[in-house]
């Protein structure tokens, strides 16, 4: 596997401009002749599909939800970063670049991050032009707020529904192109495999989730914008349908998978209440602006929170990280909470949470101000837990939230399979080992609106060949393989439901490949997962039929992939013998803080599939830090 990142030469600030100029253009009349498949309609997918159609390409777009507007991007609450410096507080493209590289704990590719920071400004312009109703100040100008891991106010937001509003903007543009006949939309359609012809991505095989029909679609190029794989943990803040299927099956067709073990745990989620729990609910990070995080100083303290006097409380974030305090980055805050729980000082029935207390903020600012800022979040919390956060401190606990890992891509966002491009959370490129708050939305839209429209031409202009059609035998072969898998799943007729396997896998992943990882644990997981997978293929029970709506079958296919992918994650975590960002190896720490090993691991690890049952091969893309110098990340 050859990993050529194709980073343009020259000073960091000029790379993107230069690259755009040097990129090949496709003659407008020819664009019509190129067919582009976009899988996914989240921020990355919808933005890419709409923009490419505006440019004149023939686009088909796929998503598994009933409408492109329901892609998981809709759930993002907090906001989107952009280096606009509207607040005049010293922000700049370079500072956003710097913060992102540092926040990612020096495991991201500098050139990509700088480009991201550059186009961040165009994103806001574009979204406002589309009618995204960002929050404004009384003077009519855009408002900003600050977010964890940054000391400037550069986050744009639309109440607590930023992702929704951004996605609706992209969705509207996409629907406009659908109405004009330039995009053909396939909702309720799941990609089940990638088709390659002569080593080039040439189409996909999909299942219509209503009729069950399995069919092929051919194109000159395929863009995967299929989001993250946090659901490998079963419980996460991701939507129920989020999956690794599209990227994992492409990996099996030859795309390198980079840094699969880099997952982000978000510190402020509502704790688990029982084993029926189907997902975890995120409480916006903005709560940490006013809430104080604490646990009792005594182990197993069963007193009600208001019975614990201040002197006996441990405000552990403020204690350990005095300069960032409750606003420490996510990985740090999450780990500190886990330590407190592991120490037997966790709160609630399960002991798996910590308090997020608004008592002082309410005393200082008044209940009304707090209600104005967080009213709907408090309401949501009360509805889910049955407790009133104005009176009793919230209980929060860390939960899987985002996956920095993804398919490896070069500067053009092309994977190791020519013609297969990967955008948004599905790729690995910009966040290194930890993503800063409000940066995923930025990345998805940057990739879709601004990067791919410029870089796709480089591939298409050189692609001197007639379109492959679905008549090519490779399609039939892939379709047959997909049909076989479906049949197989339906035929097992064992005794355990798909969910029960998924929950068990999730528990293994959380225990051994979650917030803290160790050689011993990972090795154990590497034994447990194959055994579970073996049982799955012997004992899963999928009812119903293939030629109809069959949600159990959909889940079964996704869980089958998670059962293989989980193993890859553990393998990656095992080899990476250092702690960085969201990846914390217990063996590699110093005074309880993560210890990075730049000598051995300043690279992206890229896994190559070598065949069923064979060990995948690890490649590396060395990362050079020419602008932001390698330093220990400190938030103390």
């Amino acid at each position, binding site marked *: 596997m050859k990993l050529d990142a194709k980073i343009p030469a020259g000073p960091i600030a000029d790379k993107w401009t230069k690259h755009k100029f040097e990129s090949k253009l496709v003659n407008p009349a020819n664009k019509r002749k190129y067919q582009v498949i976009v899988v996914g309609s989240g921020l990355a997918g919808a933005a890419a599909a709409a923009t490419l159609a505006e440019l004149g390409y023939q686009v088909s777009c796929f998503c598994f939800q*009933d409408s492109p507007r*329901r892609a*998981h991007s809709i759930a993002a609450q907090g906001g989107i970063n952009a280096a606009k410096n509207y607040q005049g507080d010293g922000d700049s493209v370079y500072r956003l670049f710097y913060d992102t590289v540092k926040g990612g704990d020096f495991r991201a590719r500098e050139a990509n991050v700088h480009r991201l920071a550059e186009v961040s400004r165009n994103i806001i312009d574009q979204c406002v032009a589309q009618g995204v109703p960002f929050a404004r100040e009384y003077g009519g100008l855009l408002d900003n707020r600050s977010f964890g891991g940054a000391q400037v106010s550069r986050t744009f937001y639309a109440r607590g529904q930023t992702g929704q509003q951004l996605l609706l903007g992209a969705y509207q543009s996409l*629907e406009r192109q659908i109405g004009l006949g330039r995009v053909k939309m396939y909702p309720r359609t799941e990609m089940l495999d990638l088709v390659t012809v002569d080593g080039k991505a040439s189409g996909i095989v999909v299942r219509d989730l209503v009729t069950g029909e399995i069919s092929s679609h051919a194109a000159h190029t395929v863009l995967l914008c299929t989001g993250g794989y946090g659901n490998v943990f079963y419980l996460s803040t991701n939507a129920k349908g989020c999956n690794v299927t599209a990227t994992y099956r492409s990996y099996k067709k030859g795309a390198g998978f980079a840094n699969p073990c880099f997952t982000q745990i978000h510190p402020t989620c509502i704790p688990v209440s029982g084993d029926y729990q189907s997902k975890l609910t995120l409480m916006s990070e903005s709560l940490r602006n006013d809430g104080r995080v604490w646990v009792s100083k005594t182990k197993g303290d069963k007193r009600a929170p208001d019975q614990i006097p201040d002197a006996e409380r441990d405000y552990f974030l403020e204690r350990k990280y005095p300069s960032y305090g409750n606003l420490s980055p996510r990985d740090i805050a999450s780990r500190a909470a886990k330590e407190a729980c592991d120490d037997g000082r966790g709160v609630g029935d399960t002991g798996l949470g910590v308090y997020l207390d608004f008592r002082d903020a309410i005393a200082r600012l008044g209940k009304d101000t707090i209600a104005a800022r967080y009213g709907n979040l408090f309401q949501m919390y009360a*509805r889910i837990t049955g407790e009133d956060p104005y009176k009793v401190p919230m209980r929060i606990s860390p939960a899987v939230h985002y996956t920095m890992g993804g398919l490896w891509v070069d500067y053009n966002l092309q994977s190791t399979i020519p013609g297969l491009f990967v955008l948004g959370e599905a790729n690995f490129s910009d966040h290194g080992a930890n993503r800063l708050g409000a940066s995923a939305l930025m990345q998805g839209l940057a990739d879709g609106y*601004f990067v791919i429209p410029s870089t796709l031409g480089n591939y298409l202009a050189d692609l001197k060949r007639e379109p492959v059609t679905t008549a090519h035998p490779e399609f039939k072969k892939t379709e047959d393989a997909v049909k076989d898998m479906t049949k197989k799943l339906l035929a097992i007729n064992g005794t355990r439901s798909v969910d029960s396997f998924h929950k068990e896998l999730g528990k293994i992943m959380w225990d051994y490949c979650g917030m803290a990882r160790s050689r011993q644990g990972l090795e154990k997981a590497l034994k447990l997962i194959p055994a579970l997978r073996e049982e799955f293929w012997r004992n899963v029970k999928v009812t119903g039929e293939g030629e109809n709506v069959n949600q*159990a079958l959909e889940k079964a296919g996704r869980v089958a992939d998670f059962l293989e992918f989980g193993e890859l994650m553990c393998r990656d975590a095992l080899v990476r013998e250092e702690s960085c960002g969201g990846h914390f190896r217990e063996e590699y720490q110093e005074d309880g803080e993560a210890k990075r090993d730049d000598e051995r691991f300043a690279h992206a690890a890229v896994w190559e599939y070598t065949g069923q049952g064979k060990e995948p091969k690890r490649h590396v893309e060395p990362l050079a830090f020419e602008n932001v110098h390698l330093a220990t990340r400190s938030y103390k």
Partner: protein
Amino acid sequence: MKLTLKIWRQKNAKSAGKISTYKVDKVSEHMSFLEMLDELNEDLIKKGDDPVAFDHDCREGICGSCSLMINGVPHGPDRGTTTCQLHMRRFKDGDEITIEPWRAKAFPVLKDLMVDRSPFDRIIQAGGFISVNSGGAQDANSLPIPKGDADQAMDAAQCIGCGACVAACKNASAMLYVAAKVSHLGLLPQGQPERQKRVLSMVKQMDAEGFGNCTNQYECEAACPKEISVEFIARMNRDYVKAAVLAREVTSTGGGE
């Protein structure tokens, strides 16, 4: 707690459906409504029966996928709450709960509790956008927008496209949904150039999809999980007639150029 569920079962779009009765025990008050259905489905799978199909994804009240008529009220008894955010502490031991899909000619049932809401997408295709291509937009702050207008636009823009308004309305009218989108864009300066054309095209598409007409009953507002106000319907009534009387060009659905 123990509950009796009466659930609409329908094999596919073509076959007829009927209400079937199920018993569930071991329901915890901390469960969400959909988790309760998950448990029922686990039971059904164990017995080799077909699990109940229902749409859901985010389970956070934002994607608009979930859609159940619970005891005759869309999204159940709590105001401003989606089904996925409804919790079982809202019910009592021994309750009987009737669960049906949204019912409207424009929303045919695909299976059990799952319906086809694609008319909503087609209404957006007809004009629910601002025609700007990517790239080349002016600086975001060169267009100040009064906070009040931006806030009101946001009130409308919160719609999650769930279809509860249609389900609740005696006439199966989609006015609240369409009005929310028309108002979101119509309240902003960026939306002005296409304002007349937009409302004419979107209403035309809405009518063509087979929704009913609004007779100002306001049930939709009560059912809307985002509590979108019928004030936006009034706004659209006004906008529509103004556009019909004043618009210069003949509008057609679809397209935006």
